C-alpha cells in the first residue's frame, strides 16, 4: 500500500503543476478579456486593463486553490524524494560520431581573427554605444508593456 502511494506521488505532483499553470493562465486571460471589454463608443479604453489592485484581487481569488495545489505539490514531491522515486533511464544507444573536422586549428584561428576584427569594427562604428543605449533603457516590448 505504501509503495503504491509512493508510486502515485510523482503523478500527483505533476497534476498539481498542471493545475497551477492552468489557474494562472486562465486568470491572466480572464482579467485581460474583462478589462479589454470596457471601452466607450469610440473604442477607447475606459480604464487600464491591469491595475495593481485588480491583479492583487485576482491572485487573492485563486489563493485557496493555488495554496492547496502548492501544498499538494510540496507533499507529493517530498514523499517521492523520501521514497527515492526516480525516473526511468533512457536506453543505451550507440553514438553516431561525425568525421573529425579537417584543419580545425586553422578554422579556429580564422574565426578568432574574424571575431576580434568584428568587435573592433563594431567599437569604431558605434555598435558598442548602440548596445549600451538599448540596455540602459527598459525595453517595454521585451517585458510585454505596451
Amino acid at each position, binding site marked *: 500500500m505504501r509503495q503504491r502511494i509512493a508510486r502515485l506521488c*510523482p*503523478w500527483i*505532483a*505533476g497534476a498539481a*503543476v498542471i493545475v*497551477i*499553470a492552468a489557474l494562472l493562465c486562465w486568470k*491572466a*486571460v480572464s482579467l485581460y478579456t474583462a478589462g*479589454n471589454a470596457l471601452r466607450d463608443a*469610440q*473604442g*477607447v479604453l475606459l480604464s*487600464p*486593463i*491591469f*491595475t495593481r489592485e485588480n*491583479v492583487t484581487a485576482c491572485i487573492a481569488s485563486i489563493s485557496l486553490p493555488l495554496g492547496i495545489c502548492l501544498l499538494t*505539490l510540496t507533499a507529493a*514531491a517530498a514523499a517521492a524524494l523520501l521514497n527515492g*522515486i*526516480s*525516473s526511468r533511464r*533512457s536506453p*543505451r*544507444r*550507440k*553514438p553516431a560520431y*561525425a568525421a573529425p573536422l579537417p584543419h580545425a586549428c586553422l578554422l*579556429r584561428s580564422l*574565426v*578568432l581573427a*574574424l*571575431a576580434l576584427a*568584428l*568587435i*573592433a*569594427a*563594431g567599437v569604431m*562604428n558605434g*555598435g*558598442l*554605444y*548602440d*548596445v*549600451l*543605449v*538599448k*540596455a*540602459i*533603457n*527598459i*525595453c*517595454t*516590448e*521585451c*517585458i*510585454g*508593456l*505596451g
Partner: protein
Amino acid sequence: MAKMINRFRKFLPTKRRLIQLYAALLSNAHAKGFVSGEIFTGTSKAMCVPGLNCYSCPGAIAACPLGALQNALASTGARMPYYVLGVLMLFGLTLGRTICGFLCPMGLVQEMLHKLPTPKVRKSRLTRALSWLKYMLLAVFVVILPLWHGVKGLPLPAFCKYICPAGTLEGAVALLAHPDNTGMFSMLGGLFTSKFVIMIVILAACVFAYRAFCRFLCPLGAIYGLFARIAVIGVKVEQPKCVDCGACMAACPMDIRHVGDHECIHCTACIGVCPTNAITLRAGRIILKENEAVSKPVPSVQKNRRTLRLAIAAAAIIMLAGALWYANQPAVAPDAPDIPAAESAIPIGAEVGMRAADFTVPRYDGRVWRLSDHRGKVVVVNFWATWCGPCVKELPFFDRLSAAYGQDVAVVAIHSDLVTEDVPAWLASRSYTLPFALDETGDVIRAFGGSAMLPQTVIIDRQGVIVSNRVGSVDYAALEALVLPLLN
C-alpha cells in the same frame, strides 16, 4: 544514520550547480535594483553576458546577447551589427554550448524546475525533431523579422517581444512586483497577457521535460550549437578509447547523436558513466574534468588540480565582490532642474495636476521650441528615439494630431539625449510636419519624471497644468480622447 546521510548527500550542489549559481549572481549583481525597482544604467551594460539574461531585469549589469543581436539587426539600415556578431562568435568559439550548461541563468531556472519529482518526458525521435524548432525561431524571429522591420525603419526585436520567457520573468515580473512601479500596470495589455501565458507554459513544460526551453526554443543555444565542432572548451571524446557501449547516450538528458554535438550542453553527465575514461571536459589540451575513478591520476596531479581550483575559486570570488561593489554604489543625484518661481498656487512638478516647468529645446530645423511660447494652447510633448520601436510606430499619430488640431494644440516630439544615428537624415526620409527637437542633456525628460523608459507622452492644458503623463505607446483614438475635452 549513514543511509540517511548518503540519501541527502545526493542533494548537495555539484560544482556545475555552484558555477551556474555564481554566473546567475554575477550577471545580476545589481542587487540594489530589486530593492529600488530600477534597472542598472552603468557602462558595463555595453558588454554582453554569454547566457540568456534580460537587460530589463532590475539586477542585470550587462546586456543580453540575443536582445542585443536583434536590436543590432533592426538597426542595420543605420549601422552594420559588427560588434554583436563579433561577441557572439567569440563566445561560440571559446565556450560553445558550455555556456548553456554552466553559465546561463535561464538554464539554471529550467534545471531547478525539473528537479520537481513529477513524471518526466523521455527523449525520443519526437524530442529530437522538436530540437530543430529553435533553429527556425532563430531564422524567423531573431534574424528575418528584425531585419525586415529594420529596413522599414521600425526596430522590432521579434523574439524578445513575442516569445522570450526570460524578459517576462526577469523583467516584467521583477519590475511589476515593486511597489514604486505601480504606474507600469496601466501599460499592460494583450502583449503582456500572451507573453505571460507563454512563460507559464514554458516553465510548466520544463518541469516535465528537461530544459524544454533550451532544447526546443532557445535561439541562443541554436547560435552556440553552430560552433559545436570548433569550440575550444567542451566535452570531447577520445575515439580510440571509446567502446561504443552507449552509456553516455543513456546518461545524457539532451537530444544528442553523439557526445559533443550541437545539442550537447557539456553538462558532464556522461563523464562519470564512461567505463574507459574516453570522455573528458577539456579546454584545448588541458583536461578540466575526467572520470577520476577510472583514470586514477597520480597524487601530484591531483594536488596541482586542487591548487588550480583554489586559485580559480579565489579569482572568481574577487570578481564577484568587485561586480557587487561596482553595481551597487549609491547613485549620485542629478542637479535639480532650474525651475522658475511659481506664478500661481499650483506647484510645479511632473505629476498630474501640477504645473509643467518651462523648458527650451533646440529644434532640428534650427529654431528653438519653448513651452511658454505656447501658453493658451493644449500642449502634447512626446519623448521618443529612433532606436525605440514603439516610439517610431506611434509618431504618425502625433503628426496626424498636429495636422488636425494645429490651431489649438501644440505638438512637439523630443528625441532622447541618447542618439545612435543621424536623426535629421532619418527625419528627412519621412514626411512628418510636426516639430522635432532634441533633449540635449536629458534634463527635460527628467523634469517630467522620466528617463529609463520610452515612449513617454505628456499632455498639458491651456493653463499649463499637466493632465496626463504616461509612459507607453498611445494610439490616435487615445490621444484624441485625452486632448479633445481640453479644447472645450
